[in-house]
C-alpha cells in the first residue's frame, strides 16, 4: 500500500541564505492513511516547521524548502510533490486534502465574524455549498465536535466562546472539507487540563469516525501516548528517533528520547509526594487566610443593576513555615487572584489575611508565570536585582553586589551576568533570575504563580529541583500555584484544589492525590496526561465551568465540609 504522505530528506531553511540557515536538516517519514504520527520535541526543534512544510504554509513564515520531496497522495489517487508544486496547486490542497488546526484558537479565528459565518465560509470554499445548505452543514459539523446547543452557538462571535469551544470551532472548520490529513500544531497547549483531555478525546473519536490521518505536534511526550500510532522525536532539526508509540515509550533508543521521558513529570497518584515535612500541632502558621473574598464589579449599563465577578469566594487556609501548599485549579478558578490578594495586588472585598512578622519588612514575595513579562527589558541584571533592596532602604554598594553574586550563583547563573539584559537569557535562566531576585529580601514565603508552566519540560524539572533545594536552604514556605498535577506532586506538601472561586478540597498531598474525594478533583486527576495511561480511554466530557458573574448582593450559601481523613477536608457537593 502506498503511504498517504511520504517525506524524504526534507530540508527547510530561513532567511537570506536558506541553505546555510537550516532549521530542518533532512527529515524523512511516511504516514499511512488513517494513521496518526506525533512529532515531539522542545521549542526550536523544527517540529512545527516540518509539519508546516507538508502544506507549504512554511513559505509564509519566510521558510524555503531547500531539498527533499513531500509526496502526497490526493483524493483522486494521483500523487503530487508538495515541495515543488506552485502556489495555485497548493491552494487546492490546503483545506481540501490537508486541514490544519493551530495552537491559539483566538488568533486563528476572525473576531468580527460569527463562528457560524466562518464555518459556512469553509464549506463554501471547499465544497461549494451556499445559503441554507451551508448553514445546515455548519450546524451538523458543530454538533460533530460536541458543542452543546450548537444551533445558538452559530451566532456567537469568537470572543463569546471559551478557549476549548474555540478550538472545537477550529476543528469543525478543518473538518468542513473532510481532509484526508489533519495537521494539529500544539492544539491543546493554550488550554486547561480538563479541556485538553476533552479535545484529545474528541480528536481520537473523530479520527475513528472519519478515518483521516493526523500529524500531531506537541512538546509534551506524555500527551501523545493516548492518540499516536507512531512517534517521531525531533531535536535540533533532526529526527533522532521514530518508531511505533509503544516502542518509543517503552524502549527508547536515543539518549534524547530517554532524557525527554525522564524529564516529563510522571504523575503517580500521590506515590511520589515529598515526605520531608510533618505538621506539628504546636507550630504557628506564617500566613493565615480566613474567608477571603475578592470581587470585581461589572457594569451592565446605566440603569441596570451592577453585578460582580466572584473571583474568590470564601477561601480559607493556613501555611506553616517551611511548607509548600499547592493551589491547583484551572484558569478562572481564582487561584492567581488569591495569590494577588495575599500580596495586596488586588483589593480584597472581605476576609482576613494575617501574616506573621518575618525576617524582613516584606516577608511575602512572588515569582510570576511569564519570565519574559516580569523583568523590565530596559534594566540590566544589577538594576533588576537591586530593586527589591533599594525599595527597602538599602544602598547599592559592594555588600549588596556580593549578595547578588551569591544568590545568582546559588540559582545556577554565572556571577558575571550583572550587566547583561533580560533578552540575553533563555526562559529557564530568566526564571532563575526572578527566583534569585525575590530572595534578595530574605523572605519567609514565596508565592510561585505558575512559575514553571512556561518552561520546556527538561528546564522545568531542573527549576523544580532548584526550588526544593532553596526551600530547605533558606527555610522558605511556598505557595505554589499551578494547573499541572504532575508538577504539584513533585513539590507540594499540602494541596488545595480550587474550582469556581472556592476551595473544594484541601489536605495533605498524598491523601488528596491518591484518594480524591470531590468530583472536580477526580476529574482534574483523570485528565492528567501520562505515558503510563496510554491505553486508558477518555470519554468526551463537555462540562462547563459555571459563570462567576453574580447579581449585586448575591452571597453564596455557606460551605459545608466533611473530614475525609486526618488533614484532608472536602467540601460537600450539592446534589442536583
Amino acid at each position: 500500500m502506498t503511504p498517504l504522505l511520504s517525506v524524504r530528506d526534507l530540508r527547510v531553511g530561513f532567511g537570506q541564505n536558506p541553505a546555510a540557515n537550516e532549521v530542518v536538516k533532512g527529515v524523512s517519514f511516511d504516514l499511512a492513511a488513517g494513521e496518526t504520527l506525533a512529532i515531539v520535541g522542545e521549542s526550536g526543534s523544527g517540529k512545527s516547521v516540518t509539519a508546516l512544510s507538508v502544506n507549504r504554509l512554511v513559505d509564509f513564515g519566510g521558510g524555503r524548502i531547500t531539498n527533499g520531496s513531500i509526496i502526497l497522495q490526493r483524493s483522486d489517487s494521483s500523487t503530487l510533490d508538495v515541495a515543488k508544486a506552485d502556489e495555485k496547486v497548493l491552494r487546492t490542497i490546503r483545506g481540501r486534502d490537508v486541514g490544519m488546526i493551530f495552537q491559539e484558537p483566538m488568533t486563528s479565528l476572525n473576531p468580527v465574524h460569527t463562528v457560524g459565518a466562518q464555518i459556512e465560509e469553509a464549506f463554501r470554499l471547499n465544497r461549494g455549498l451556499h445559503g441554507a445548505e451551508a448553514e445546515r452543514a455548519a450546524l451538523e459539523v458543530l454538533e460533530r465536535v460536541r458543542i452543546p446547543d450548537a444551533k445558538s452557538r452559530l451566532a456567537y462571535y469568537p470572543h463569546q466562546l471559551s478557549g476549548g469551544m474555540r478550538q472545537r470551532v477550529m476543528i469543525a472548520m478543518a473538518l468542513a472539507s473532510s481532509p484526508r490529513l489533519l495537521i494539529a500544531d500544539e492544539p491543546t497547549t493554550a488550554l486547561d487540563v480538563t479541556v485538553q483531555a476533552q479535545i484529545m478525546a474528541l480528536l481520537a473519536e473523530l479520527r475513528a469516525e472519519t478515518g483521516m490521518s493526523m500529524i500531531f505536534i506537541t512538546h509534551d511526550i506524555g500527551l501523545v501516548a493516548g492518540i499516536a500510532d507512531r512517534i517521531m522525536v525531533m531535536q535540533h532539526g533532526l529526527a533522532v528517533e521514530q518508531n511505533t508509540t509503544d516502542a518509543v515509550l517503552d524502549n527508547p533508543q536515543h539518549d534524547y528520547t530517554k532524557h525527554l521521558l525522564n524529564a516529563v513529570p510522571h504523575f503517580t497518584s500521590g506515590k511520589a509526594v515529598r515526605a520531608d515535612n510533618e505538621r506539628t500541632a504546636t507550630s504557628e502558621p506564617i500566613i493565615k487566610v480566613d474567608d477571603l473574598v475578592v470581587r470585581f464589579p461589572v457594569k451592565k449599563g446605566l440603569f441596570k443593576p451592577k453585578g460582580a465577578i466572584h473571583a474568590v469566594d470564601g477561601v480559607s487556609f493556613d501555611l506553616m513555615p517551611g511548607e509548600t501548599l499547592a493551589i491547583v485549579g484551572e484558569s478562572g478558578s481564582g487561584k492567581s487572584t488569591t495569590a494577588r490578594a495575599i500580596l495586596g495586588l488586588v483589593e480584597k472585598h472581605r476576609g482576613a489575611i494575617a501574616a506573621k512578622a518575618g525576617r524582613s519588612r516584606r516577608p511575602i514575595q512572588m515569582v510570576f508565570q511569564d519570565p519574559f513579562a516580569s523583568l523590565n527589558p530596559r534594566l540590566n541584571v544589577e538594576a533588576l536585582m537591586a530593586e527589591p533592596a533599594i525599595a527597602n532602604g538599602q544602598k547599592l554598594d559592594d555588600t549588596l553586589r556580593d549578595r547578588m553574586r551569591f544568590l545568582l550563583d546559588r540559582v545556577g547563573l554565572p556571577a558575571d551576568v550583572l550587566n547583561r539584559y533580560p533578552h540575553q537569557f533563555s526562559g529557564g535562566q530568566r526564571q532563575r533570575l526572578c527566583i534569585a531576585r525575590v530572595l534578595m529580601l530574605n523572605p519567609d514565603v514565596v508565592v510561585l504563580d505558575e512559575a514553571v508552566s512556561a518552561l520546556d519540560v527538561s528546564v522545568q524539572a531542573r527549576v523544580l529541583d532548584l526550588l526544593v533545594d532553596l526551600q530547605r536552604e533558606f527555610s522558605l514556605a511556598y505557595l505554589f500555584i499551578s494547573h499541572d498535577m504532575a508538577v504539584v506532586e513533585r513539590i507540594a506538601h499540602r494541596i488545595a484544589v480550587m474550582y469556581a472561586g472556592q476551595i473544594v478540597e484541601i489536605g495533605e498531598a498524598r491523601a488528596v492525590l491518591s484518594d480524591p474525594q470531590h468530583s472536580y478533583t477526580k476529574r482534574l486527576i483523570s485528565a492528567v496526561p501520562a505515558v503510563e495511561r496510554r491505553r486508558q480511554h477518555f470519554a468526551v466530557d463537555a462540562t462547563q465551568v459555571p459563570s462567576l458573574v453574580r447579581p449585586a448582593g448575591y452571597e453564596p450559601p455557606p460551605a459545608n465540609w466533611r473530614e475525609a481523613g486526618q488533614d484532608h477536608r472536602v467540601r460537600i457537593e450539592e446534589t442536583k
Partner: protein
Amino acid sequence: MSKLARAFLRHPSGRIGLAIISLYLIAALLGIVGLTPHDPLKLFAIDRLKPPSATYWFGTDLLGRDTFSRLMVGIKQSMIIAFCSVGLATLFGTVIGLLAAWWGTLWDGILMRIMDVLLAFPAILLALLIIAIVGPGTSTSVAAIAIVYTPIFARVVRGPALSLKQRDFVDAARTFGSSQPYILSHHLLLNLVAPLAVQVTLALAWALLTEAGLSFLGLGTQPPTPSLGLMLAESKNLMTQAPWLMIFPALTIMLGILGFNLTGDALRDILDPRTQRREA
C-alpha cells in the same frame, strides 16, 4: 548607543535626515556666533534686489540685505524656538500622560479631557489665540507652540503607559514595595524612550513649520531679527522681480521639515521592537 548610531547610518533616510539636520545645526551655530558672510542687518543700499552672485550667494532683498546671511540667522531663530518649544512640550506632555495613566480614573478623565480640548483646535489657530492674548515675541512663540504640542505628547505617553502599568514587572515592583517615583521612572518612562524619541523628531518638524507660519503672519519673531517666515512674508510682493527672495526661504523651510521627518521615520524603523527582534 553606538549600536543606535550604526543602525542610523545604515538606514538610507536616516543618513539623509541626519545630514540635513547637521547642516542646519552648523548654520544655526555659525548664526549664533556671527560667522555669516555679511552682516544680516546691514543695508547695502547700492546692492538692492541683486540676484544671486558670487558676493551675495542667495541675492539681496529690497533694503539690500544679504539673503544668505539672513537665512543663517533665520535658521538659528527657528531652531531655538523649535527645540525649546518641543522640549517644553515633551516635558509637560510626558508628565501629564504618565500621571494620567498612573493615577487613572478621575485624574485620567480630567487631565485627558483638558488635553482633548486643546487638541480639538487647529495648531496654528490655538497658537494665534495665545499670542493674541499675550502679544508677539520669541518667548511667546515658544510658549504657544509648546502648549499646542503638549497634548500630542500626553497622548503618546498615556497609551503605552496604561499598558505598561498592567505588566508583570510593575506588579513585581509593587510586591517589593518600590516607591511610585521609582516605578514611574524605571519601569514606565524607561520603556517609553523609544516612542518619545520618534515623537520628538516629528514634533520638531511641525514646530519648525508652525514657527514659520506664525512669523509669516507677523506674530512670531519681530523685525528686524530675520526669520524664515518673516522673509517669506516680505518676499510675497516681489515674487516676479526677485523670485530668489521667496525660493530660498521656502526651500530652507521645506528641507528642514524633510530632514526631521526622515530622521523620525528612521528612528521609528530602528526602534521598532519587531525589527529589533529580527536582529537578535
